[in-house]
């Protein structure tokens, strides 16, 4: 069996390190992607009416995924994972060849960012979400027992979101709901609480992922001009959403709810948390349901995927990681097929040994009840 080989290692001895040389224990990959190869691929999972709806209009699918992951961009796919003549990460054979087998994963969790959130047509958005979820079940979950997945939802209609959770939420392969980080409204707000109630009923994790409404501003002060701004500064959208979920008391109302921050980075969290803890002491009367310091809520209710790392120079990485002040917060992810310029080996080597088994598999196994 082929073994995964690490790339991007800045220290010469690590460049070309194999998966087992780096870490011989179990691995769970919490963020791999399934790309819908084309709208036609979803036709088997749509009713005649919606197929004709697409054909009548010559509609080829939501453009949001192309905006967030420009298909030809080096960021959208690592060169060694880019197949000839087909969309990267668009079928289970590619995923097996590139991740499941060489990384010898116990489980991998599929996140499909197809941009359903870009649709403002309420019925079409719900129908497209259903099609994507049924495609995930039939073409991914049922083809490899190691796979689990996040379901997608029509993000603008809480009732339709609940309906879709009830429709497919009992499928054992769905362990999570994908929430694109950028949305018309902050996710903590009460209009979405019925969605979280349904998620708790089905024991689904809240998977907050890079992407989302492209016609909404990605920053708090308006629109950016370039892809690099969207891509590199997306953490500010994550911080806004995490602040909302914490401040709105979502975890006091739904103590069982768990949030995974995926492709959102994690080293911004301590700095954010220190500020939040400080402000909470004097402003907590505004949000009296916030019964403990925000960073305590983060430790109980949030986990973060390890891609991207945003780690800075390896010499400073150790100290930055200490700022997390927890060995439980991180979960390993390859973020297949995306290419962050991360030096995972350097990062792996600066974290405490006791944290490694948790980060590589145990935390995810507990979090997702795998």
């Amino acid at each position, binding site marked *: 069996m082929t073994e995964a080989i690490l790339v991007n290692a800045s220290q010469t001895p690590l460049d070309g390190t194999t998966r087992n040389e780096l870490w011989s224990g179990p691995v769970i990959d919490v963020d791999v992607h399934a790309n819908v190869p084309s709208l036609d691929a979803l036709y088997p999972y749509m009713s005649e009416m919606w197929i004709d709806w697409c054909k009548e209009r010559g509609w080829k699918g939501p453009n949001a995924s192309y905006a967030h992951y420009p298909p030809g961009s080096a960021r959208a796919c690592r060169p060694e994972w880019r197949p000839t003549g087909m969309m990267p990460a668009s079928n289970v054979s590619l995923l097996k060849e590139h991740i499941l087998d060489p990384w010898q994963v116990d489980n991998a969790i599929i996140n499909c960012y197809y941009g359903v959130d870009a649709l403002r047509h309420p019925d079409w958005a719900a129908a497209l979400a259903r099609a994507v979820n049924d495609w995930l079940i039939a073409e991914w979950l049922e083809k490899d027992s190691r796979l689990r997945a996040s379901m997608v939802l029509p993000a603008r209609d809480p009732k339709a979101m609940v309906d879709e959770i009830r429709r497919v939420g009992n499928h054992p392969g769905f362990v999570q709901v994908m929430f694109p980080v950028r949305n018309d409204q902050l996710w903590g707000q009460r209009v979405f609480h019925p969605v979280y109630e349904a998620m708790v009923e089905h024991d689904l994790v809240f998977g907050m992922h890079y992407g989302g409404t492209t016609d909404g501003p990605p920053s708090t002060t308006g629109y950016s001009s370039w892809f690099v701004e969207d891509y590199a500064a997306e953490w500010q959208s994550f911080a806004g959403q995490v602040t909302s979920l914490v401040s709105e008391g979502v975890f006091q*109302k739904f103590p069982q709810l768990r949030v995974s921050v995926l492709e959102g980075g994690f080293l911004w969290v301590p700095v954010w948390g220190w500020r939040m803890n400080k402000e909470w002491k004097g402003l907590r*009367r505004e949000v*009296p349901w916030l019964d403990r310091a925000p960073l305590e809520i983060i430790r109980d209710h949030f986990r973060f995927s390890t891609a991207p790392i945003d780690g800075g120079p390896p010499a400073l990485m150790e100290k930055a990681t200490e700022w997390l002040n927890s060995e439980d917060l991180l979960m390993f992810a390859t973020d297949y097929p995306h290419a962050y310029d991360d030096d995972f080996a350097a990062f792996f080597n600066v974290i405490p040994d006791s944290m490694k088994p948790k980060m590589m598999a145990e935390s995810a196994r507990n979090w997702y009840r795998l």
Partner: protein
Amino acid sequence: MASNKYVVGRASDLAEGERMIVEVNNRSIGIFNIDGKFFGLANNCPHKGAEMCKGHVVGHLSSPAPGEFEYDTSRKYVMCPWHGWEFDIATGQSYFDPTGVRTRPYAVEVEGGSAVISEVDDGEASYTPGEYALIAQDPGFALHEGIAGDLDGRKPGPYTAETIPITVEDDYLVVNFRPVRPPRAARKVEETA
């Protein structure tokens, strides 16, 4: 003989809901009249030293879930004017970290003029610092009736008697620098344990 007690004013001068700041034994202390009961609190915030007792006096606000408010106006907090930290006026404990961040509470007694006169004349027996520390550590120690507190073993400062004219007819507010004795029952338990 040194005294632990300081007469700070007439009870009738501090109406319900009002407060005053007094200088006693070189310390600034806020005296609050909460529903007819009197409480004293060190007037310096343990955070950055602001004159804490000049802040808003508010009720105890908590919530079991978003949108549900429980407002208990029988428990009062003073909010530091600088950063808004809330301190329980009865115990000196902060809302956000009651055991770690707190300020010193003082017992404020209302005494008749004749009692005050005889105490001032006689002086008052005071604890040694070691005895004081033992009492402050006692879990049964209560500063005010029915309200648990913890003085963290702080030792009383040097004592000087207040010398203000006292008339027999009035009630006076007396700040007591020593902790109230534990209730008799609590002491019994400790002795037999």
